C-alpha cells in the first residue's frame, strides 16, 4: 500500500525521495520547503504565500512567464501551494522531459529575482485573492475561528496574511525572507513516476550539489497555552444562511491521537450513517450540512465541526445536540461495527491518495514535511488505525473536545443589510 521510497541525502542538507512507478509514462516532481505562515512574524504575515507567487516571476535563468511557458510547451502542468507549515511546488510532466522541472527548481531555490516592479504588480493579484476570500462566507468563518483557537501561536494569522501587512511590506523584506528560508537544507524533493533511479540521482547531484546550505535552524515559535475556557465570536455574512464552526486544539500529525481523531471524525460525520448526520440532519433536522475535519499540523492542530443550520434553528440548539453526541461517545464509546466501518473508509481513502503519480508525491511530501518521523510513518498507518478502539475514542473526546475548550464562531445572516442590498438590476 505504501510505495518503495529510495532516499537520497546530499552533503548540503537536501533530501530527495524517489519512487519508481511505471504504469503511465509520467513523472510528478515536487519540492517542499519547510517554511509556511507559521514562520512569519508580526508585520510580515502572508509573506510565505506571496513569495510562492513570486517564484513564477523570474529567476537568473528563466524570465518572467517562462516557467509556465516551458511547462506548457512540454505538455505538463505546474502549481504551488502555501500551508501553515510548508510551501510546496510541483510539476506533472511526461517521463521523457520531466528533468526540466528539476532544472527550474534548482534555479529558483536560491536565484529567484524578486524584481521590484513584478513584486508591486503581483501584490495586486494577492490583494484580489484576499478580496475573493473575504467575499466567501466559509473562508471568513474559518479565518475567524482559527484566530480564536490560536491566540499566541502564529497559526493565529491567516496564511494569506493580514491585508495591512501585504499592503505595506517592501520587496526588501521579502528578499530577506527568501534568503533565510529557501536553501537545500530546508528542502525535500519528492519525485514519483516513470524514472530511472540512477540517472535521477545523478541529475540531482549535478543540479543541486553546488548549492551552499543556508544554515541556522527553523526558529522556535510560541506554543499555544492551555485554553482557560471557551471562546466565542459572532460575524455577519451576506445571505439568509446561519453557519456555525466549532474547533478545538488537538495534537501533532502522526501522534497516536491523530489516528484516533481520524477514526472519530469518520464515526461522527462521514456519510449518512454517521452519528451527527443521523441525529442532526436526519432525525432532528437541525442542520442541512454537517462536517468534521481532523487537521493535524506540525504543532498541535485542530479538530473542526462545521454546520449549515436549517432555517429558523437557533445555533444554541446545534451546540446542545453536539454536546449530547460527544457526551454519548465519551461515556459509552462506539460499537465495533462503527469502528470497523470507519477503518474501512479510511483505508479506502488512503488508496485514492495513491491513484496518480502526483497524488502519491503530494502525500509523501506532506507526511515528510509535517510529521515527526517523516514519510516512513506512512507504513504504520493501517496498523495505527487498526489499534484504535472505543476506549481511545472516549479518551480523545474527553481530552480534546470538552465544550470548555471550544472555539465557536457563529455566522449570522445580515451582511447584506449592513453592507447594502441584495442583487438587483442597476
Amino acid at each position: 500500500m505504501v510505495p518503495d521510497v529510495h532516499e537520497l541525502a546530499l552533503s548540503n542538507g537536501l533530501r530527495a525521495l524517489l519512487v519508481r512507478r511505471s504504469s503511465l509514462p509520467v513523472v510528478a516532481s515536487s519540492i517542499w520547503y519547510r517554511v509556511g505562515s507559521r514562520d512569519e512574524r508580526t508585520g510580515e504575515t502572508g509573506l510565505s504565500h506571496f513569495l510562492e507567487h513570486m517564484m513564477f516571476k523570474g529567476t537568473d535563468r528563466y524570465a518572467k512567464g517562462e516557467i509556465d511557458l516551458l511547462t506548457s510547451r512540454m505538455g505538463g502542468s505546474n502549481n504551488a501551494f502555501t500551508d501553515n507549515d510548508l510551501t510546496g511546488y510541483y510539476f506533472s510532466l511526461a517521463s521523457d522531459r520531466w528533468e526540466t522541472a528539476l532544472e527550474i527548481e534548482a534555479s529558483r531555490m536560491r536565484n529567484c529575482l524578486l524584481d521590484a516592479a513584478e513584486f508591486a504588480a503581483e501584490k495586486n493579484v494577492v490583494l484580489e485573492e484576499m478580496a475573493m476570500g473575504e467575499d466567501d462566507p466559509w473562508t471568513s468563518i474559518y479565518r475567524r475561528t482559527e484566530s480564536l483557537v490560536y491566540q499566541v501561536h502564529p497559526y493565529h494569522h491567516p496564511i494569506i496574511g493580514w491585508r495591512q501587512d501585504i499592503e505595506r511590506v517592501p520587496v526588501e523584506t521579502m528578499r530577506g525572507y527568501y534568503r533565510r528560508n529557501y536553501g537545500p537544507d530546508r528542502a525535500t524533493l519528492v519525485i514519483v513516476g516513470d524514472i530511472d533511479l540512477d540517472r535521477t540521482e545523478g541529475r540531482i547531484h549535478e543540479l543541486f550539489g553546488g548549492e551552499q546550505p543556508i544554515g541556522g535552524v527553523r526558529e522556535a515559535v510560541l506554543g499555544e497555552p492551555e485554553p482557560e475556557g471557551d471562546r466565542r465570536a459572532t460575524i455577519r455574512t451576506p445571505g439568509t444562511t446561519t453557519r456555525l464552526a466549532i474547533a478545538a486544539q488537538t495534537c501533532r500529525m502522526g501522534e497516536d491521537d491523530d489516528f484516533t481523531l481520524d477514526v472519530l471524525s469518520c464515526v461522527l460525520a462521514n456519510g449518512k450513517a454517521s452519528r451527527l448526520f443521523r441525529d442532526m440532519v436526519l432525525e432532528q433536522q437541525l442542520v442541512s450540512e454537517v462536517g468534521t475535519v481532523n487537521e493535524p499540523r506540525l504543532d498541535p492542530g485542530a479538530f473542526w465541526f462545521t454546520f449549515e443550520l436549517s432555517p429558523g434553528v437557533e445555533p444554541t440548539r446545534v451546540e446542545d445536540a453536539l454536546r449530547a453526541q460527544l457526551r454519548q461517545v465519551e461515556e459509552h464509546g462506539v460499537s465495533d461495527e462503527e469502528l470497523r466501518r470507519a477503518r474501512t473508509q479510511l483505508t479506502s481513502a488512503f488508496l485514492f491518495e495513491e491513484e496518480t503519480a502526483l497524488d502519491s508525491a503530494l502525500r509523501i511530501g506532506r507526511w515528510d514535511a509535517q510529521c515527526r518521523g517523516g514519510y516512513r510513518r506512512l507504513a504504520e498507518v493501517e496498523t495505527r488505525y487498526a489499534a484504535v478502539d472505543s476506549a481511545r475514542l472516549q479518551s480523545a473526546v474527553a481530552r480534546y473536545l470538552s465544550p470548555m475548550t471550544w472555539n465557536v464562531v457563529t455566522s449570522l445572516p445580515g451582511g447584506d443589510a449592513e453592507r447594502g442590498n441584495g442583487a438587483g438590476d442597476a
Partner: protein
Amino acid sequence: MRELDLQIAERLLDNGLTVIAVRNPTAQTFAASAVLDVDMRDEQEAERGLAYLIGECFDEGTRRRSGVELAQALDDIGCSLAGHCSGAAVTGPAKDAEPALALLREVLFEPSFPAREVARVKDEIRQEIEVDLADPRAVAQQRFRREVYGPHPYAHPEYGSAEHIARHDPEALHGFHRRWYVPRRGYVALAGPLELDRGLDVLAAEFAGLEGTATDHRPAPEPGLPEPSNVHLAMEREQVHVFVGHPGIRRTDPDYHALVVMDHILGSGPGFTARIPRRLRDEQGLCYTVHASISHTAGEEPGTFAAYIGTSPAHRDRAIAGFLEEIERIRQDLPDETELVDVRDYLTGSYVFSFERNAQLARHVIRAKRLGLGFDHLEEYPERIRAVTREDVLRVARAHLHPDHMVRVSAGGS
C-alpha cells in the same frame, strides 16, 4: 512520448443499455459511472428541477433498504456513491467493484423516494438556492445563462426554482423516474484492473435483467445569437464577477479541435500563457481568476462562449475592455506560429494526464459514446490537434466569436 493506448470493450445488452469496460491494469481502485438518456432538457415547464431532485434523492433509500442502510452498505466496502440528474457514479477499492455495482443498479432502478427524506432534500435544495442568491458569482453566472440561452432549457438553473421545488412530491419523482430512467440508450462504464471480458460479464450480470421503455425526447429550441446587452446586479461585495459571451458550439461541431486550440491561445491555457490571463492578471494584476473558453462547455447541446473575471469594482470596465480587445484581435490577425506550436504541444503532451484516474476513464468513454464519436476518437485527439493550422484558428475565431452579440453580465460591488 508514448501515445495513449486505451483498453476498452463494450457490449449492447438486450434491454438497450450499453456496458463498457476500461482496463487500468495497475489500479488498486475502481470507478463505475452510469449515465442514462435523461436530463433537465426532458422536463416540462412545471417539472423544472425534477431531474436534479431525483439525482439528489438516489441515495435516500431503495425498495430494499433505507438511506442509512444504503450508506452502511457502502461504508462496509469503503465505497462512495453520488447521484446526479442523469445517473450516478460509485468509486472504491478494486476488490469491491461487484457489490458496489449492485448498489449502483439498486439506487438507479429501485429508488423508493421516501416522503420524509424527499421533503428534507427539498429543504436542502431551497437552502442551496438561498446560498447561490447571496453569491455574486453564482448570481452573475445564472443571469448570464438566462441571457445567452433564451428559450433553451439551459437558461434555467438545473435545480429549478424554490417555487418549482415546493411543488414536487414523491409521486412526481416516481412518475418522472418511470418515464425516463430506463436502460435503453443508457451507458454504464467500469474502469479498473479487471480484464475486459470479465468486466463486461460483471456489468452484464448486474444490468441485463432490467426493463423499461424509452420515451422520445422533444428537441430543445436552439439558442439564437442574442442582442447585445449589459446587466449589472448590485451586491455589496469586495469583488465584482463579470461574464461576457454568447451561445457556443456542440461537441460534435467539426471546428471543435480548432476551437480548443483557439481557446488556449485566447483564454484558457495553463498558468498565464493565454492572452487574456497574461494581460489581465500577469501584466495588469487585475484579478486572481480569469479565463475564457468556447470549447469547455461544448456538449450534446450548444455550450457557451464565456469570458470570466473576478475583480475589484474599480477594474470592471478595464477588464471588459481587455476581453473585447483580445476577442477582436484573435478575429483579426493570424496567431503567431510560436503561439500555435506552444498550444499544440501543450494539448497533445498533456492529454495523457486526463486518463490517469478511473473516474476520468469512465467519464471519457461514456461521453465518447453519447456524442457518437466512438472510442477511436479518444486516441485520435492528439492527431486532430496537431492538424490545426494558424489559418484554422483565424477562420474559427471569425466564425464562432461574435463581438456584436455579446451579453455582458456582472454582479457584486459597484
